[in-house]
């Protein structure tokens, strides 16, 4: 007998949670914890990771009665995770917590080197340098929360406009326009710091 057939399906667990068995939600959380954490880690500062990921599961729990099973549960919870990160940045922008500092020389050098030496070995070294992370955070910090979300999904993760639109619950036209504008803005920002 296949072991997976003994495991309750997502739909069965959801039905149990809705009927009042709160502890059944832990099984769902364990199943999708790594996936949600991966989504959140890439999008919010590490210091806010635990709190934001917690919000994702609380939202998922509270919204469970609205889950109609049209998409699979992993897609549904991914969408909640991305939207929770979006809300995090909206709040952060409102409370002026986003750093608007200028780009330091070390980060400019990192960018120059990444462009001039595209070899895989060089890229592996560059990725672990903190200047790269600072540069990415700085560039994303110059974007609006909406542009930031689209840039992450389309430009960095390589999702299609339609996939990004489904996750964010926006129209395809909105995603396409934002994707085009935010990419141009990013390139303009970075080219401004590249030495002649």
């Amino acid at each position, binding site marked *: 007998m296949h072991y997976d057939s003994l495991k309750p399906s997502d739909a069965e667990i959801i039905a149990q*949670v*809705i009927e*009042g068995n*709160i*502890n059944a*939600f*832990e099984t769902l*959380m*364990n199943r999708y*914890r790594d996936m949600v*954490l*991966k989504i959140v*880690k*890439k999008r919010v500062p*590490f210091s806010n*990771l*635990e709190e934001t*990921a*917690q919000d994702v*599961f*609380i939202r998922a*729990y*509270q919204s*469970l*009665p609205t889950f109609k099973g049209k998409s699979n549960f992993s897609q549904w919870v991914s969408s909640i995770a991305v939207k929770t990160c979006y809300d995090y940045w909206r709040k952060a922008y409102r409370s002026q917590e986003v750093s608007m500092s200028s780009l330091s020389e070390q980060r400019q050098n990192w*960018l120059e080197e*990444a*462009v001039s030496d*595209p070899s895989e070995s060089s*890229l592996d070294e*560059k*990725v*672990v340098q903190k200047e*790269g*992370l600072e*540069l*990415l955070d700085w*560039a994303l910090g110059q974007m609006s929360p909406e542009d930031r979300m689209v840039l*992450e999904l389309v*430009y*960095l*993760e*390589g999702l299609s406009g339609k996939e990004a639109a489904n996750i964010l619950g926006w129209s395809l036209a909105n995603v396409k326009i934002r994707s085009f504008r935010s990419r141009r803005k990013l*390139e*303009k920002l*970075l*080219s*401004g710091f*590249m030495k*002649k």
Partner: protein
Amino acid sequence: MKAVKKKDRDRIRKALTAVYYEKEKGEVGEHWPSRVMGQIEALGPLNLTETYFELFERLLWRLAPAACVLVFLLSIALFSMDFVPGYEIAGWLTEDPAEFSLLGLFS
């Protein structure tokens, strides 16, 4: 400021994407899952009773097609009865101009 060539744009994207995925490596604390479950348990079982507004919203959309059909049927009925409000009012006005009042139409 110089324009970035396509080749350079691709390299920038590749480098930024690699950095972006590097962020996945951080770990949450050992007790984080139990804290989340604690928060969820504190919320209690899900409340499935609908508020009046939710009930109204759901019924409103269900009744919308029936309302459209009703309006359509009433329009056909009024046209088939040759009822033209303008002509009807003008008719009453010309029949008895001294006694005519709009309120009288509804009495």
